């Protein structure tokens, strides 16, 4: 019976059978008398009533060691009692060895904390990242961010096999709420299918309806839960108009909490006005395959679509939408970018965890070996190996549980560091600090402590304890012990080398990236992104220039300018160029940039020849000639043999463009791109002004780049209250961001490597110290016979070096094999970079020798007479 079996585990073996038999016989009696139901109820009440009392008794027996005299022929309590006894024994033994205990707990806790922290970050991002039901049905279409609205409208009825397909594009808006400053809100403009595709409907209100994305349709918007709460969490907002970018739109829905698309930063979703003839490549397509279909077998549908596109439109070769057509699972599309960094960190943490386990295992092995005579005595007195092994397991479990508690503290700290340091972008909000971190720490700790007990337990199991009892007093080289420990240390060194190689590679790569000259001076420049909604071009120009004037007059500002696109922030606009004298085959378009007069001064872009913009340019409406500054790359490409200054070109705005100066190249879209031809126009003259602009402010003292920002904000609010500030940062930060994830991961991996080296050093020290202690008699005899103490040092260190060299060899081998997983983060170095590998090896060797020297010197100083007297 189940009920009796439950009770069985709580009863000592001596009484088990009689009690259960009594219960069963009474149960039978009652069944005959009162029927089945009443007797079963009685039995269960007996069991449930007995449970707490028996658990208390087991606990008490475990703690007091009481055993009934009537059970002397069959002593011992239930299994649980033995665990309690052993846990108490382990605690007692650990208390007598505080150094060993503290070292083990700290080591394990470091590993556990790190592992739990990274698990806390990774779990929400990789395990369950997307807030959409059945997200395996969702896919991104090829060439995201470059679809035209007319293509989407053409293909709209063609998607057989898809439940729905939606087009969307980023559309950041300003929100005006009465009485509050204009707010900048990142958002999405999409076709009406979007929420059908994602399979999520608003929590309040409704989703988009077909037709709401047509030309002339009523403009509607759906808000995120967070934005709705920020605006006062009023459910009656649904149906009311909200001014976005100065245009009223009707709020039709509030999304559920936790929903995001396409990243957690987006907070409004607008029904777009899809232009059936729109030809700007700004849309991305996302689709959900029909039930029963899978993302991987949609290729025929895709092929039909590309055929249709090919037959309707002609594409230039570099934008050919009919090429490389494929679907990417949404999860891969969303998480792909951060995966290398996450996995690198996860792997590094796992290696640290391994090192920590190895360290504690080595320490425990040493303990087992130094206890060998005690263990042998126990075994002679009747303790079987199972009992001794279970003592070891209990000891490491106790260590593990304590380490788990301490590790939780480390995990919380590590979690915060990691969340800030990992290149998570908008996703840094999704991992939250909660109790799962504690659970993760405890689970990791228990697994780790069981792993730790494995080696010592194996060593006990394998060894002949009685032989040790007879041999133990002989000391010296009688037994070849410590072999397992050497194995552990070699593994530990190998793991540390592996990490150090990875960190070395990333360090080299980041150094390479930083050594790229961006072409401008990143120090002492504040950068403020602003949005200037619903203004006509000339009015916008006036507003921008008045802001620049206001900021320029601030104390501490050396130069201020407004620009449409900063270096290192994407490709920006391109325009046609006509240079009759240009060599054949040069591209017919170049990048163009628009900046106000002091743009070059503010960014520190050097003037190479001619003049910069100086305020002498005509800005009246009758002007027919624009002054432009070109960069060196344009001069070299289009004017290889003549001086470009004074030359007239055109092609972008239908006006003549006279070149007045040449400036140096800057990194345009990305740090690693080759330099590209660029024309600069003056904001004051430009026939073109985007809604989103960036202010660049160079401060007189470079360290003021951050502290100037509040007064810049104030100046903007004063000059143009209806302009929204999006982001305020520094040019150095823009540059750091361009260096990318490798930079963040380098910092992390650097820290982790430091930790690994520290743990490795502790491991080497511990093992060498035990090696020295084991051979104390050996050394003493040899020193007594005339061996110089310096030779003792070199012998001991030599033993350590031997282990370290083997470890390094294994680690380098592993690094060469595994290095390619880092390649996504590397720039300018190969995974087999000799400098990184040699550097890591030297670092390990140095640290290892230092760690071995301490016990070696101690060994050389022991007085042989003292040691030998103990024999």
């Amino acid at each position, binding site marked *: 019976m189940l009920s009796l079996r439950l009770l069985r585990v709580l009863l000592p073996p*001596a*009484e088990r059978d009689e009690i259960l038999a009594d*219960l069963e016989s009474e149960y039978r009696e009652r069944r005959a008398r009162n029927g089945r139901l009443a007797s079963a109820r009685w039995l269960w*009440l007996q*069991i449930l009533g007995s449970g707490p009392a028996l658990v208390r*008794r087991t606990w008490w*027996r475990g703690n007091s060691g009481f055993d009934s005299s009537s059970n002397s022929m069959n002593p011992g309590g239930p299994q649980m009692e033995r665990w309690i006894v052993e846990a108490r024994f382990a605690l007692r033994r650990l208390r007598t060895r505080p150094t060993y205990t503290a070292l083990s707990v700290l080591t394990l806790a470091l590993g556990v904390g790190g592992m739990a922290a990274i698990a806390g970050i990774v779990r929400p991002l990789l395990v369950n990242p997307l807030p959409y039901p059945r997200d395996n049905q969702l896919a991104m279409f090829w060439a995201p961010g470059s679809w035209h609205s007319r293509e989407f409208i053409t293909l709209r009825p063609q998607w057989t096999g898809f439940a729905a397909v939606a087009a969307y594009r980023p559309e950041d808006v300003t929100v005006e709420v009465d009485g509050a400053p204009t707010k900048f809100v990142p958002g999405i403009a999409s076709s009406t299918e979007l929420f059908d595709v994602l399979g999520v409907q608003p929590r309040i209100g409704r989703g988009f309806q077909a037709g709401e994305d047509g030309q002339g349709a009523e403009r509607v918007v759906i808000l995120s839960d967070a934005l709705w709460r920020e605006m006062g969490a009023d459910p009656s907002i649904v149906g009311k108009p909200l001014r976005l970018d100065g245009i009223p739109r009707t709020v039709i829905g509030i999304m559920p909490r936790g929903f995001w698309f396409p990243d957690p930063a987006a907070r409004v979703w607008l029904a777009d006005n899809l232009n059936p003839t729109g030809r700007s490549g700004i849309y991305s397509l996302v689709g959900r395959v029909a039930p029963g279909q899978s993302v991987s077998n949609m290729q025929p549908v895709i092929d039909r679509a590309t055929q249709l596109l090919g037959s309707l439109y002609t594409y230039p070769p570099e934008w050919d939408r009919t090429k490389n057509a494929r679907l990417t699972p949404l999860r891969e599309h969303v998480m792909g970018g951060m995966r290398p960094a996450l996995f690198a960190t996860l792997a590094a943490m796992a290696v640290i965890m391994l090192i920590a386990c190895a360290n504690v295992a080595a320490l425990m092995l040493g303990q087992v070996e130094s206890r060998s005579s005690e263990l042998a005595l126990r075994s002679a007195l009747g303790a079987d190996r199972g009992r001794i092994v279970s003592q070891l397991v209990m000891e490491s479990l106790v260590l593990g549980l304590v380490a788990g508690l301490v590790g939780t503290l480390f995990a919380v700290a590590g979690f915060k560091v990691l969340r800030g340091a990992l290149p998570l972008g908008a996703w840094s909000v999704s991992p939250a600090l909660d109790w799962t971190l504690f659970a993760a720490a405890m689970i990791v700790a228990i697994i780790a402590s069981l792993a730790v007990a494995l080696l010592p337990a194996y060593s006990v199991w394998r060894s002949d304890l009685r032989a040790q009892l007879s041999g133990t007093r002989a000391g010296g080289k009688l037994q070849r012990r410590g072999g397992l420990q050497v194995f552990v240390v070699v593994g530990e060194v190998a793991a540390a080398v592996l990490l150090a190689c990875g960190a070395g590679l990333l360090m080299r790569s980041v150094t390479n990236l930083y050594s790229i000259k961006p072409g401008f001076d990143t120090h002492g420049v504040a950068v403020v992104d602003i949005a200037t909604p619903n203004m006509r071009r000339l009015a916008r120009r006036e507003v921008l220039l008045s802001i620049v004037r206001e900021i320029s007059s601030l104390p501490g500002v050396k130069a201020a300018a407004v620009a449409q696109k900063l270096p290192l922030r994407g490709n920006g606009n391109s325009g046609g160029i006509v240079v009759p004298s240009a060599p054949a085959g040069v591209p017919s378009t170049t990048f163009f940039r628009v900046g106000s007069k002091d743009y070059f001064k503010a960014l520190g872009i050097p003037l190479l020849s001619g003049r910069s913009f100086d305020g002498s340019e005509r800005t009246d409406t009758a002007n027919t000639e624009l002054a432009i500054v070109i960069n060196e790359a344009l001069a070299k490409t289009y004017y290889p043999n003549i001086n470009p200054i004074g030359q007239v070109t055109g092609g972008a705005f239908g006006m003549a463009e006279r070149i007045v100066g040449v400036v140096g190249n800057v990194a345009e879209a990305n740090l690693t791109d080759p330099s590209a031809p660029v024309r600069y126009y003056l904001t004051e003259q430009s026939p073109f002004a985007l809604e989103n602009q960036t202010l660049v402010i160079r401060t007189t003292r470079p360290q003021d780049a951050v502290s100037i920002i509040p007064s810049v904000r104030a100046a903007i609010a004063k000059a143009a209250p209806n302009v929204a500030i999006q982001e305020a940062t520094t040019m150095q930060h823009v540059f750091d961001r361009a260096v990318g994830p490798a930079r963040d991961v380098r910092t992390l991996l650097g820290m982790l490597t430091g930790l690994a080296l520290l743990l490795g050093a502790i491991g080497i020290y511990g093992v060498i110290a035990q090696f020295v202690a084991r051979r104390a008699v050996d050394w003493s005899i040899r020193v007594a016979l005339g061996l110089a103490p310096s030779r003792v040092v070199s012998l001991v260190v030599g033993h350590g070096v031997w282990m370290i060299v083997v470890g390094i060899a294994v680690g380098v081998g592993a690094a060469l094999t595994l290095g390619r997983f880092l390649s996504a983060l590397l720039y300018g170095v190969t995974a087999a970079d000799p400098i990184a590998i040699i550097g890591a090896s030297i670092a390990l060797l140095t640290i290892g020798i230092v760690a071995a020297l301490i016990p070696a010197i101690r060994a050389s100083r022991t007085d042989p007479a003292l040691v030998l007297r103990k024999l």
Partner: protein
Amino acid sequence: MNDETPLGTFEEQVMLAVLRTAGDAYGMVIRREIEEVTGREIAVGAVYATLDRLEAKKLVASRRGDVDGMSRRLFAVLPAGARALAESKAMRERLWRGVDLRGLLGATT
């Protein structure tokens, strides 16, 4: 737990039941005895746990013995246990002395 600790109510009941069933006092019998006299249902685990505690306090002793052909753990009250019971009873009587419940209980007595 020292010998000075006064007996708990349940401990007292268990020891009295051991005395009442003298001879073949084992767990199940003790349980039934208490149930019959007090009319309360008692879990056998609680009886055994209490017996263990009493034995650790050296108030009862246990030995192995055969009852109806089955080996049982049989309990007997030790002199120290008897003293504890007597003390417990005396203490109760001292407490009762001078207590008159008649007014509170009213007409029923």
